[in-house]
């Protein structure tokens, strides 16, 4: 009977050090909030710097003229054209293959094969971009010289696993009942995949593509060895090396010339604006499509 007279709260306080536990709890909360504030703060700092330093160099010149030559006023129009062409070609090379790989994984392969393909794609995704650049340098650039097409090929290698994984993940969310309904009407498997499954998943595929494009548009490392030594002029000849935004920023960022540094800031602002817009687009696509799929 004597146990019952003991106040249970008293036990907690004395034996488990409630005060200390409360302090630990408090400290944990503050640290967690602090970490989130640090991460957001860094983002705001970087973007803020870009806007402040980049806007002063942005003007019409910047979008219509090629790179500055020795103190001349110039822009990055050549790099804009080059980047657009190279990223466009990379998309043409990577997206069809990536979507087919994803279709194979979700529609044809058994679970074991699909799982090993997932690992292969994830490992491919983990190959450093600079190593991909060296690879393309070794198989194509050696003996042929640099070219925008080779640069696009290097970017396509980086895009492939990203798009394939995103597509495969969304294909798996497409309800089984859609496929069954199509099969029940006597539609062949490939037509079902092409006309029913892919359209249902298109939002998710677009999200993956947009995120991959945003990422490779800013990649410098694969381009250094494939399309970096280019003339200072606006050109659309993809069989030669073309200047690109990331390589231009990279070269200018290590330049002591303040004119080139300010051009680097402006180019960085253009690049990040593109990347942010793409990411926000992806967010919108993803939210809408997922709701639709889950609703069906």
């Amino acid at each position, binding site marked *: 009977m004597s146990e019952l007279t003991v106040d249970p709260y008293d036990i907690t306080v004395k034996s488990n050090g409630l005060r200390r536990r409360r302090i630990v709890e408090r400290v944990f909360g503050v640290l967690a909030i602090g*970490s989130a504030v640090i991460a957001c703060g860094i983002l705001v700092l970087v973007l803020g710097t870009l806007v402040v330093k980049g806007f002063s160099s942005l003007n019409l010149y910047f979008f219509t003229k090629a790179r500055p030559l020795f103190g001349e006023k110039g822009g990055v129009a050549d790099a804009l054209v080059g980047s657009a062409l190279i990223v466009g070609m990379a998309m043409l090379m990577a997206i069809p293959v990536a979507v087919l790989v994803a279709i194979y994984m979700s529609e044809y392969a058994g679970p074991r094969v699909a799982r090993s393909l997932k690992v292969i794609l994830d490992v*491919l995704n983990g190959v450093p971009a600079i*190593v991909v650049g*060296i690879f393309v340098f070794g198989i194509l650039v050696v003996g042929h010289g640099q070219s925008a097409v080779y640069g696009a090929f290097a970017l396509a*290698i980086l895009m492939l696993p990203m798009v394939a994984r995103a597509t495969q993940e969304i294909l798996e969310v497409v309800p089984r009942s859609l496929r069954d309904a199509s099969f029940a009407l006597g539609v062949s498997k490939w037509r079902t*995949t092409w006309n029913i499954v892919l359209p249902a998943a298109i939002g998710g595929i677009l999200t993956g593509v947009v995120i991959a494009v945003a990422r490779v548009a800013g990649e410098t490392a694969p381009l250094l060895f494939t399309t970096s*030594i280019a003339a200072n002029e606006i050109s659309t000849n993809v069989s030669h090396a073309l200047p690109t935004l990331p390589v231009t920023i*990279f070269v200018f960022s290590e330049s002591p010339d303040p004119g080139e540094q300010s051009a680097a800031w402006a180019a*960085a602002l253009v690049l990040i604006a593109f990347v942010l817009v793409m990411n926000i687009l992806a967010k919108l696509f993803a939210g809408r499509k997922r709701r639709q799929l889950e609703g069906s």
Partner: protein
Amino acid sequence: MTSTAYENPAAPESDLRRRGIRLGDLLFRGIAVAAALAATVLLGWIAFKVFDLAWPAIQDFGLSFVWTDAWDPVTNEFGALIFIYGTVVTSMIALLIATPLSIAIALFLTEIAPRKLAAPIATMVELLAAIPSVVLGLWGIIVFGPWVRDHLEPWIQDTPLGWLPQFSGEPSASGIFTAALVLTIMIIPITSAICRELFIRVPKDLTDGALALGSTRWESIRGVMFAYAAPGIVAAVLLGLGRAFGEAIAVNQTIGNRNAIPSSWFEPGDSLGSKIASEYVGATSLEQASSILYLAAILMVISLATNLVAQFIVVRFERARRAV
């Protein structure tokens, strides 16, 4: 019976159509298999080709290249140790700082922040990952580096840590420490995004059970969530590490590019990826690029190994979860 009679005249056509459909299926399947094979072959080809490219250098310099502390084009002495040191030390510092921060961010997003606040903050952390490395490097060298030199490094030297040889010497804008901090910024979003997904997947009844037994929120996180998600956290950290090992551009811009092992972390050094990136202008022939290709092979081995271990843990982890 009548239906078969009616169908009969059309039989050749329907048979053809049926065969046509089969042909389409076969063709489509074939293309899909080819694409999957291509992706697999590509990975093997990259690994093979980079070694193949480095092979002349591997024969020339031998394995001792890996632990040779020299890079002198004049005396023709080359070794990878300077760059391996730079890669490993910058990535490890980044890992040490980024891991607790990432876990804390993930916990904030899943456990503390109200839903309305969690979504935009998660988006902001994701956007941090979207900043191209060359842009982060530009910011790192022109804005962040000088701040590190003028404020952060002197401050560290004033604390008891300043007695360590790693924190001695003259603070500088570009160096091992600045590069490591830039890498930290790059891997925080990767690690925290994976940790967040792990924490979301921890069954609510487990943490609720801990809370019902009288533990505080932190105790339930430490005792239940961490125990449940531990392998996943290790994999997340390794994936971040793989990314840090492989980063060439932002490190190149901030590490200072000096061919020597620095005695202090505040001094400039160089890393594998960064050294390779610096040499792009000279790389027009294989002979000139030979030792650089050796560095590329070493970098590939390090990052592939890190990634494979991470993947292995993920696969094991998922199998265990499925079994539950």
